[in-house]
């Protein structure tokens, strides 16, 4: 699974992208988020934001969205283009 981070989140985590070879029991996007949050700082506080958005395979999703090892997940703050 590929996990991407964008904008302020990418900077806070100092991570643009990571590749997971197994899901470690995760069934949903929320399970992945929980696993990332257990890494300690800055992961726990940066990923605890009120308005964190998640996409699965480049579509806006939510934390209940089911995931598989072949999916592309992304976490990012609310968008501000235009």
């Amino acid at each position: 699974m590929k996990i991407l981070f964008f904008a302020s989140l990418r900077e806070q985590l100092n991570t643009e992208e990571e590749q997971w070879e197994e899901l470690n029991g995760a069934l949903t996007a929320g399970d992945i988020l929980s696993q990332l949050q257990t890494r300690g700082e800055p992961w726990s506080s940066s990923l605890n934001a009120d308005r964190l958005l998640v996409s699965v395979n480049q579509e806006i999703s939510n934390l209940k969205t089911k995931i598989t090892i072949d999916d592309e997940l992304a976490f990012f703050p609310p968008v501000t283009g235009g």
Partner: protein
Amino acid sequence: MPVNIGTIRIQEADFSIDEEYQRLRVAHPAQNGAICTFSGLVREFGDNEGVTGLFLEHYSGMTEHSLQLIIDQAAARWKLNDVTVIHRVGQLNLSDQIVFVGVSSAHRADAFAACEFIMDYLKTDAPFWKKECHDQGDEWVEAKESDRNRTKKWS
């Protein structure tokens, strides 16, 4: 099945409104009665005063996909001949062009409404992020409730 319309370009380079307008104008010469265009520019005040430029980041792939969905929604709602959406990314300076939306239609009401609809949804749904550059450093722009309210009024 309706055919998807629309041209989407994400690019660092600037664009020419005249060229984009002419492209829309000649694409459906007998059907166009109206073309509405919008362009968004870098200004010196936003979340901060004294903004000297912007850095724009996007989620390549998802951006194009989400813009196509927005265009598809507009084309289902109004009678449109063609749509062009261009959004620049990377480093931009004051008064630079950021975004272009052009809509051609038989009638002005459809062109006006679709152009505004596409721009409102682009602001809240397309994965772009702006960072303001100013004297005190760089800061990511906060998403605005006013933008979300503008999008909500279309539903």
